[in-house]
C-alpha cells in the first residue's frame, strides 16, 4: 500500500490511471453512457454530498453524511443505471435536447495503491474537475470541485469502485444535475 518507494512504478501507474480518467471523461462527453456504465463495478458507490457553511472548528459538519443524510447523490449502480436509461428514453426533457458537456480532469494524485505501485489491483486517487455544461441556446453551468475515486483492476482494465464528489457550492447554482461527475 504505498507510494513513493518505487518512483518509476508510480510514474507508470499515474500515467495509466490518468489515461483511464481521460477515457472515462471522453465517454461522458461523447454521450456514450452505456459504455460509461460498463466502467462501474457492480458494487460501485457514488456519493455527492451537499455542503454547508459551518463555524471554524466544526468542519466535520461541512458535508452531509454518506448513508445518513440527504445528499445530491448517494447511490449504487442500480440508480446510476436508471439515470442512464432515463436519458436514453429521448423524452427526458431536462436533457432533451442533450446538453453539451466537457469534463476537465486535473491535479491527479494517487493516494494509495494496493498491494503496490507496480502491481496495483486497487488505486485511490484525488483530482479536481471542471464540468462545463452548455444547453439549448445560452444556458451555461460551470461546476468545479474535488473528486476522490477508488479504481479496481478487473480483467486487466480499470473500473470505478467508488466516486466521491465535493462540489464547491452551497446553494447549487445549476437548476439540475442531469449529468455525471
Amino acid at each position, binding site marked *: 500500500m504505498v507510494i513513493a518507494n518505487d518512483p518509476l512504478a508510480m510514474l507508470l501507474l499515474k500515467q495509466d490511471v490518468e489515461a483511464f480518467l481521460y477515457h472515462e471523461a471522453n465517454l461522458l462527453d461523447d454521450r456514450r453512457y452505456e459504455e460509461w456504465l460498463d466502467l462501474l463495478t457492480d458494487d460501485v458507490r457514488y456519493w*455527492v*454530498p*451537499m455542503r*454547508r*457553511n*459551518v*463555524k471554524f472548528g*466544526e468542519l466535520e*459538519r461541512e458535508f*452531509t*453524511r454518506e*448513508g*445518513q*443524510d*440527504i*445528499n*445530491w*447523490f*448517494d*447511490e449504487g449502480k442500480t*440508480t446510476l443505471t*436508471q*439515470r442512464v*436509461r*432515463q436519458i436514453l*428514453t429521448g*423524452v*427526458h*426533457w*431536462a*436533457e432533451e435536447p442533450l446538453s453539451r458537456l466537457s469534463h476537465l480532469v486535473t491535479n491527479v494524485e494517487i493516494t494509495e495503491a494496493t498491494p503496490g505501485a507496480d502491481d496495483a489491483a486497487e488505486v485511490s486517487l484525488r483530482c479536481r474537475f471542471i464540468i462545463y455544461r452548455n444547453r*439549448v441556446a445560452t*444556458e451555461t453551468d460551470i461546476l468545479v470541485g474535488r473528486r476522490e475515486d477508488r479504481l479496481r483492476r478487473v480483467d486487466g482494465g480499470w473500473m470505478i469502485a467508488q466516486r466521491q464528489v465535493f462540489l464547491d457550492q*452551497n*446553494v*447549487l*447554482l*445549476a*437548476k*439540475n*444535475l*442531469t449529468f455525471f461527475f
Partner: protein
Amino acid sequence: MAITFQPSSYSGLVDQDNGMVSREIFVNSDIYAEEQERIFTRAWLFVGHESQVSKPGDFFVSSMGEESVILCRDRQGEIHVFLNSCMHRGMKVCRYDEGNTPIFTCPYHGWSFATDGALVGVPFYKDAYHEELDKSQWGLIRVPRMTNYKGGIWATWDPNAPDFLEYIGGFRTYLDILFDGWDGSEGGTEIIGGIEKWMVPSNWKFPAENFIGDRYHNISHRSVDLVGIGPSGQGRRDNSDREGAKSLDVSFPERGHGTVMFLRPEDAQPVASYQNDPIVADYFYQCEIARKERQGELWRILAGPGTIFPNMSFLPRQPRSIAVWHPRGPDQTEVWRWFLVDSSAPPEVKEFLRQYYIRYSGPAGLTEQDDMENWNYAHAASRGAMARRHHYNYQMGMGYAVTDFEDGGLKLEGTVLDTTKARAGEQNQRGFYNRWREFMAARDWDELATWRKNGSAC
C-alpha cells in the same frame, strides 16, 4: 409605455371570470417588488422544523421572502425567529447555515445578540455610548407572530395577521397528513439531515402553482415513469391504493391553498405498497391499518401535492417532503427542500425512504429535473414584449366545482372539483391567483380575512 400598477390593476391581471392570468405577474419587476411588500410581509411563511433546533442554542438560518432569518432555540428552550441583520449597520449576524451557539456576534462592529435576539454586547458601550444606548430597544428584529404547528415552524411579519390555524382554515386536514405520523399519531415526524437548496431560473409562482394541483403535466414525467423509480419498482410512486378511488382537486380560494387528492371508496382496505423491501412494506401496511382505526372515514383521503399560499408546497406521501419557493427576483427562485420521516420508524424504513427521496427529488432527482426544465423555459418564453400581451389560460374545469362535496357520508370542506373522469382541472390554480390578487390589492388583514365577512367557518 411604462406600466404603473395600482391596486385596481390587479383585477385585470387576474381575470377570474374568464380564467386568465396575465404573464406580467410572472415577469414584471415592478409587480415582483410589490409582491415582496404585499405578500411576503403579510402572509404566514414556513421557516423550518423544530427537529432542526432540538437543543438550546441550536440555530438554522432560513429565509422569509428574500430576507434571511434565524430560527433559534434560546437557552431557556423557547423557539424564536428573527431577522438576520445587525441593528447597528445591517450586517448579517450569522453566515452559517446551521449550528449551535451561545451568542451571535456581528463581524462588522461587534454588537452581540443572545439566542433570544436580545442585544447583550456593545463594544465601547461605556466610552463611546456613555452608557446611554438603550440596549433593550436594539435587539434583533423578531417576527411578531410565530407558531409551532406539529413541529412545523411558521412566522409572519404582520402583527395583525390571523392566527395560523385561522390562516390555514379547513386546509388543516391536509397539513395534518404531512406532519402526523403515518399511523395517524399526532405530529410524529422529523426532518432527515440535509436541506436541499438550489436555484431555478423561473418566477416563484410557477412551482407554487404546479404543486397546488397540476395533474395535467404527466407528460413532463414520461421518462421517469418509463424507467420506474417508485418504492415498488414501478412508475415514480405507488398507485395501488388508488384502486376505485375518486380524483378530487380541493381548493380554498378565499385562502389560496389547494391540493389534489384521491378519495378511496368507502369499503377500501389497506393495500400493499413499498414492495421493494418487505420490512418497509410491512411497516407501512401496519401504519395504514392503525391510521384507518384511528381516523375512520378520513383515512379514505389519499393526499397528494399541495401548496399553502404563498410559497410553501408539500408532498404528504411519496416522497414526503416540503418545498419552499423563495423569491430571488422575478426571474429566479431559490428552492429549499426538507424531507420528513416518521420519528418512530425503524432504521430500515428511514433508510429506504432516504434513498427514495434522493432519487425522486430536487436537482438530481429523476422526477423533478424535468419540472425545472419546464418552469425555466415557460418563464423565459413569457418575458418578451409580445408574449406578455397574452394571458395564460386557466379555464380547465371552470364551472364544474362544488362547495358541498359529500361522498358516502364524508363531507369535504373547500371547493371540490371531481377530476376522476376529467383527469385534470385548474380550479386550484384559479384559487391561488384569486388569493394573489386579493393580497396585492388589500390594504390590511381586515380586508384580507374575507371569510370573516362572509361568515363562513374558520
